[in-house]
C-alpha cells in the first residue's frame, strides 16, 4: 500500500476542502468501476454510464458527504484547540511549580488585590441587592421627600390605577418593656394600614394591618419582626396576643413578620423591629400628636408606592407632580415637585448617589487592578527575559508567534485563576470575620455583610481574567517580538537596549507607581480627612461631664406632665452628693455638628448654623468658657413658650466670625423662622465634626416649655457635672420620686461619648488604611524588583565604568537616577489622577466633599503623602542599587 503523506500536508496547507475531497473520492470510484467494466469487455462510454448509474443520485450523495465531512472537520479543529489549551495549561503549571517563590508572591498579590476588589463588590452587591422577603421589590418606589398625611390620601385616591400606596414615618425609638422586665429602647416605625398590603408581605404568625380593622383612634396594636420574636420573645409560638408595654401603653401583638423582613430601606442604618399603625391613638407615640394625620403643614410621612405593571418611575413621577401642584399652597413653584426613587433595594439610592458609588468604587477597583497588572506584568517580563533563549530558539526554528503568545498568556491565566480562587477565599474570610463581630446586631448589616454569592464569584473570576490579560499579554507580545538573531547572539537585555529609556518595562514601573500613588492618595485623603475631621476638642474639659437621656412622652406622660418632670429633674439631681451642676439640652453636648439650620442676620444675610437648645446653667455645667458677654439664664422660659419675646442666645467663636465678620456680635439680632434672638454671649464651644474638619458655627438657644412638651427622637438629655461619679441607682431613685414612669437611656460619660463618635473615623481608617498600605508595599516591591533587574542588565556596563575609574558612588547614582526618574514621573501622574478624582467626587457628592475636600486641599497632605511615597520608593530602589556599587569589574566582565 502506497500512502502518500504529501497529500495530507498539501491539504493542511490550503485548509481542508471538503467538497472537492468528496467529489474526488466519488470520481475515483466511478473510474475504477468503469475500468473494471471495460476489462469485462464493455465499451468505454457504456462502462462509464453504467458506473454512474449504479451510484444513483450522485448530487444527493455529494451533499450528504459534505455535511458529514464538515462536521468531522469542525470537531477536529475544536479538539486540536482544546488539546493545545490543555497542553499550555499543563506547561504553565509546570513552569510555576518550578519557581515557587515567584508563584507564591504572584498568587499572594493577586489574592490580596482581587480579594479587596471582591469585598468592595460584595458590599455594593449587598447594598443594591433586592429587598429581602418582599415579592417583586423592583416595582417599589419611594418619594424622596416626606409629605403630609392628607397628601398621601389624595395620591392614594387618584392614582389608584397606576399604583398601590402606603405611608410611613421615619424609624423612631420606642420604650418597650416585657412582662416583669425593665424597659428597653426598640426601633419602631409608624405605618399606614396599607403598608403590608402594598409590600405584599404575609405574616408568619397572626395577621397584619388592614384598612377595615385599623381605623383612626383605635387601640394600638403591634407587628414585630421575626428577629424580635426570635430574640426577645424566644420564638414563642403563642406570641400573637401577648402584650408589650410600649411607651406606657399596653399593646397586643397582632402578627410576626416573615424571616428577613425589615420593612423597606429608608436610607439609614437603623431598621425597625416594631410596626405600629398610624391610626393608633397618639398616646403611643409623640409623633402622632397634634392631629398629624389631618394637617397639611407637617411633612412627616414617606410615600411608598408599588407601581402597577406598565407604570414606570417617570410616568408615576409625572402624575404625582401634577397632583402635588394642586396640593401645594404655592402652586406657581417651578421645577419638578415630586421626586421618586426606586425602593426595591436594601439601600435605596437616588440615581445620582448610585453614580457616585459606581465612580468611586470603580476607580478604586481599577487602581487596585492596574497596580496588580503593572506589578506582575513587570515580573512576567523579567521572567520572559530569563527565558529569552528558549523563546528565541523556538521562534527561530519556526514556532508560531501567535501560539507562543497564547502559551505565555495561558501561564498568566493559570496564575490569575489561582489568584482568583485565593481572592475569593480572602473575601469570604473577611466577611466571615465581619459576621462574627456583627452577629445579629442589625438585620440590614446582616444583609450587607451576607458575603460573596455567585455574582461576587462571577465578578471575581471576570476580573481575574482581565488581570491575566492585563499582565500577561503585553509581556508575551514584547518577548516574542524580539529580533531572534540579536537575542541569540547577545541576550535579551541587549535586544531591548534600543528602547531602554522608554521601554515597555519602564512603562510598567511608571504605571505601577501611578496606580499605587492614586491608591495611596485617595486612601490617605479619606483616612486623614476622617481622622482630622473628627478630631475631638469640644473646647472645654470633658472629664467631669456625664449625661443620660429621658423621654417622658414615650414613657406615657402627657405634655404638661412631661414639662413639669423635666423642670424638676435638674433641681433634684443637683442635691446628690458630688454633683456640681445639672442642666438640660436637646441632645448630648456638642452633638449638633451639622450646620443645618438657616438663620437670617439683618444687614448680613442668611447663614447656616448648628442649632442646639439648652436649659439654664448649661454653660456652667459643661464648663464652656464665656469669651464675651454673660451667661444667658432665663428660668421663666421653662414655663413660658417665649412667643413674642426676643430670646437670648450664646454663639461660638466660629459663628461670631461667620455671622458678623469683624463686627461686635453682642446685642445683635438673629432671626430663626418666626423667632427672634439676641446674642448675649460668645463662648468656647466646638462640636466635633465627624467628617469634614471645618469648625462648625453653633447657636445655643434656650429651651422653652414647648420644647419640653414635645421631645424629638433623641429625647431630652440631662447633663451632669460632678467630680465623683454619680450612680445610676441614685439617679433612678431621684427620678422615681418625680414620676415612677420615667426611664433613663443612653447613660454615658462625656469622654466615652467622644471616643464613640470617633468610631466612624476609626472604621474608615480600618477599611482604607489596608488599601493604601497594600498599594505602597506592592509598588515598593515592584520597584525593587525592576531596579534589581536593571542592575543585572547593566552589570557589564557598570563593570566597565568602574574598571575605567568611575567611583562607586557614580554607579549608585546611575542606577538610582533611572529609578527615581520613573518614580517621580509615576508619582506626578498618580497625583494628577488622584486629585482629579477627588475633585470629581467632591463636585458630585456633599459628604465626599466633606471628607476629601479639606484633606485634598491641605498642602501638608498633598505634599506629605507623595513625599513619603517617593522616599519609600527611593529606599526600594536603593537596596538593589547598592549592589551596583559593589560590582566587581573582574567578575562582571568575565561573565558572558
Amino acid at each position: 500500500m502506497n500512502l502518500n503523506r504529501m497529500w495530507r500536508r498539501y491539504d493542511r496547507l490550503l485548509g481542508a476542502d471538503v467538497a472537492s475531497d468528496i467529489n474526488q473520492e466519488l470520481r475515483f470510484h466511478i473510474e475504477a468501476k468503469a475500468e473494471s467494466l471495460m476489462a469485462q469487455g464493455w465499451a468505454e462510454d457504456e462502462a462509464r454510464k453504467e458506473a454512474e448509474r449504479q451510484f444513483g443520485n450522485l448530487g444527493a450523495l455529494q451533499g450528504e458527504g459534505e455535511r458529514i465531512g464538515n462536521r468531522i472537520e469542525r470537531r477536529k479543529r475544536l479538539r486540536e484547540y482544546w488539546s493545545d489549551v490543555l497542553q499550555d495549561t499543563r506547561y504553565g503549571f509546570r513552569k510555576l511549580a518550578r519557581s515557587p517563590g515567584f508563584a507564591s508572591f504572584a498568587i499572594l498579590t493577586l489574592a490580596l488585590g482581587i480579594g479587596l476588589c471582591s469585598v468592595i463588590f460584595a458590599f455594593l452587591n449587598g447594598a443594591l441587592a433586592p429587598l429581602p422577603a418582599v415579592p417583586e421589590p423592583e416595582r417599589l418606589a419611594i418619594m424622596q421627600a416626606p409629605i403630609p398625611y392628607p397628601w398621601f390620601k389624595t395620591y392614594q385616591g387618584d392614582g389608584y390605577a397606576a399604583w398601590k400606596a402606603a405611608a410611613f414615618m421615619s424609624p423612631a425609638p420606642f420604650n418597650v418593656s416585657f412582662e416583669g422586665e425593665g424597659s428597653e429602647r426598640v426601633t419602631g416605625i409608624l405605618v399606614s394600614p396599607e403598608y403590608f398590603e402594598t409590600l405584599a408581605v404575609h405574616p408568619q404568625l397572626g395577621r397584619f394591618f388592614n384598612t377595615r380593622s385599623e381605623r383612626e383612634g383605635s387601640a394600638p396594636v403591634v407587628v414585630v419582626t421575626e428577629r424580635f420574636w426570635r430574640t426577645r420573645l424566644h420564638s414563642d409560638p403563642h406570641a400573637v396576643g401577648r402584650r408589650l408595654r410600649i411607651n406606657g401603653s399596653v399593646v397586643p401583638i397582632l402578627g410576626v413578620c416573615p424571616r428577613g423582613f425589615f420593612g423597606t430601606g429608608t436610607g439609614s442604618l437603623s431598621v425597625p423591629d416594631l410596626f405600629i399603625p398610624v391610626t393608633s391613638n397618639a398616646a403611643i407615640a409623640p409623633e402622632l400628636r397634634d392631629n398629624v394625620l389631618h394637617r397639611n403643614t407637617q411633612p412627616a410621612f414617606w410615600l411608598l408606592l408599588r407601581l402597577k405593571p406598565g407604570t414606570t418611575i417617570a410616568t408615576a413621577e409625572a402624575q404625582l407632580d401634577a397632583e402635588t401642584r394642586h396640593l401645594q399652597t404655592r402652586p406657581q413653584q417651578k421645577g419638578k415637585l415630586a421626586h421618586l426613587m426606586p425602593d426595591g433595594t436594601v439601600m435605596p439610592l437616588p440615581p445620582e448617589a448610585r453614580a457616585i458609588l459606581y465612580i468611586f468604587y470603580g476607580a478604586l477597583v481599577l487602581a487596585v487592578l492596574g497596580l496588580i497588572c503593572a506589578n506582575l506584568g513587570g515580573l512576567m517580563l523579567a521572567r520572559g527575559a530569563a527565558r529569552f533563549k528558549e523563546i528565541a530558539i523556538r521562534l527561530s526554528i519556526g514556532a508560531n508567534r501567535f501560539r507562543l503568545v497564547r502559551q505565555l498568556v495561558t501561564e498568566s491565566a493559570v496564575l490569575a485563576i489561582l489568584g482568583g480562587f485565593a481572592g475569593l477565599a480572602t473575601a469570604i474570610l473577611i466577611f466571615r470575620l465581619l459576621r462574627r463581630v456583627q452577629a445579629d446586631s442589625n438585620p440590614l448589616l446582616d444583609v450587607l455583610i451576607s458575603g460573596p454569592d455567585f455574582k461576587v464569584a462571577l465578578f471575581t473570576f471576570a476580573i481575574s481574567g482581565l488581570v491575566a490579560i492585563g499582565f500577561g499579554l503585553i509581556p508575551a507580545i514584547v518577548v516574542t517580538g524580539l529580533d531572534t538573531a540579536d537575542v541569540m547572539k547577545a541576550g535579551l537585555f541587549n535586544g531591548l537596549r534600543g528602547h531602554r529609556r522608554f521601554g515597555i518595562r519602564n512603562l510598567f514601573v511608571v504605571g505601577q507607581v501611578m496606580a499605587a500613588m492614586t491608591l495611596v492618595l485617595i486612601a490617605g485623603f479619606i483616612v486623614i480627612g476622617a481622622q482630622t475631621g473628627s478630631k475631638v476638642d469640644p473646647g472645654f474639659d470633658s472629664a467631669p461631664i456625664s449625661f443620660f437621656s429621658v423621654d417622658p412622652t414615650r414613657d406615657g406622660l402627657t405634655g404638661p406632665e412631661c414639662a413639669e418632670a423635666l423642670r424638676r429633674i435638674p433641681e433634684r439631681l443637683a442635691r446628690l452628693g458630688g454633683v456640681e451642676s445639672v442642666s438640660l439640652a436637646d441632645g448630648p453636648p456638642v452633638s449638633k455638628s451639622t450646620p443645618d439650620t438657616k438663620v437670617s442676620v439683618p444687614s448680613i444675610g442668611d447663614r447656616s448654623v448648628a442649632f442646639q437648645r439648652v436649659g439654664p446653667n448649661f454653660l456652667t455645667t459643661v464648663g464652656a468658657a464665656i469669651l464675651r458677654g454673660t451667661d444667658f439664664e432665663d428660668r421663666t422660659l421653662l414655663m413660658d413658650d417665649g412667643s413674642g419675646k426676643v430670646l437670648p442666645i450664646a454663639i461660638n467663636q466660629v459663628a461670631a466670625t461667620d455671622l458678623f465678620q469683624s463686627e461686635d456680635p453682642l446685642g445683635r439680632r438673629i432671626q430663626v423662622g418666626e423667632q427672634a434672638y439676641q446674642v448675649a454671649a460668645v463662648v468656647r464651644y466646638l462640636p466635633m465634626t465627624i467628617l469634614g474638619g471645618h469648625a462648625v458655627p453653633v447657636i445655643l438657644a434656650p429651651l422653652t416649655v414647648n420644647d419640653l412638651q414635645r421631645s424629638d427622637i433623641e429625647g431630652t438629655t440631662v447633663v451632669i457635672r460632678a467630680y465623683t461619679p454619680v450612680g445610676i441607682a441614685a439617679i433612678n431613685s431621684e427620678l422615681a420620686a418625680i414620676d415612677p414612669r420615667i426611664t433613663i437611656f443612653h447613660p454615658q460619660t462625656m469622654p466615652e461619648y467622644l471616643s464613640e463618635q470617633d468610631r466612624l473615623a476609626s472604621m474608615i481608617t480600618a477599611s482604607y488604611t489596608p488599601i493604601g498600605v497594600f498599594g505602597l508595599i506592592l509598588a515598593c516591591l515592584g520597584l525593587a524588583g525592576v531596579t534589581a533587574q536593571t542592575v543585572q542588565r547593566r552589570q557589564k556596563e557598570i563593570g566597565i565604568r568602574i574598571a575605567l575609574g568611575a567611583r562607586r558612588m557614580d554607579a549608585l547614582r546611575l542606577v538610582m537616577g533611572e529609578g527615581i526618574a520613573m518614580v517621580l514621573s509615576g508619582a506626578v501622574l498618580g497625583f494628577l489622577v488622584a486629585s482629579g478624582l477627588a475633585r470629581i467626587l467632591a463636585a458630585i457628592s456633599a459628604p465626599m466633599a466633606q471628607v476629601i475636600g479639606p484633606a485634598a486641599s491641605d498642602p501638608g497632605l498633598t505634599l506629605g503623602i507623595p513625599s513619603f511615597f517617593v522616599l519609600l520608593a527611593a529606599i526600594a530602589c536603593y537596596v538593589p542599587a547598592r549592589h551596583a556599587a559593589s560590582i566587581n569589574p573582574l567578575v562582571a566582565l568575565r561573565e558572558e
Partner: protein
Amino acid sequence: MDATKLEFLRGTLDVLILKSCVWGPLHGYAITSFIREQSDDALLLEEGTLYPALWRLESKGLLQSDWGLSENNRKAKFYRLTAKGRRQLQQETTTWHTYAAAVSKVLAAEQPNRPLAEEIR
C-alpha cells in the same frame, strides 16, 4: 434466491466495512470488491449506501481516512481502522456470531414432543 436482492440486515453493513479494513487501509471501491468477493457475489453493496456508511464511521472515529495512491497510481481516499474501530469490530463480531447461531438454531428446530399449548397450561 436472487443474489442481487439480498439486502443488508440493519447494522451488518458497518461491521462488514470494518472487517474489510482489518488488514490495512482500503479505498471505497476496494471495500465493495472485497465484500462481493468474500461473499461469493452473494452480497452486492450499493455505492449509494457504502459511502454514507463510510463517512458515518469516520465521524464516529471508527475509521480514519487519508489520501493515498491507488494500485494504478490514482489519487484515492483510503480508510484505516482506528483502535476504537478495531475494538468495535471485535465486539460486533462476537455479537453477530452469537446472534446468528441462535437464529439458526431456532430455525433448524424440529417439532417438540409435547404440544406447546400444554406447556402454557
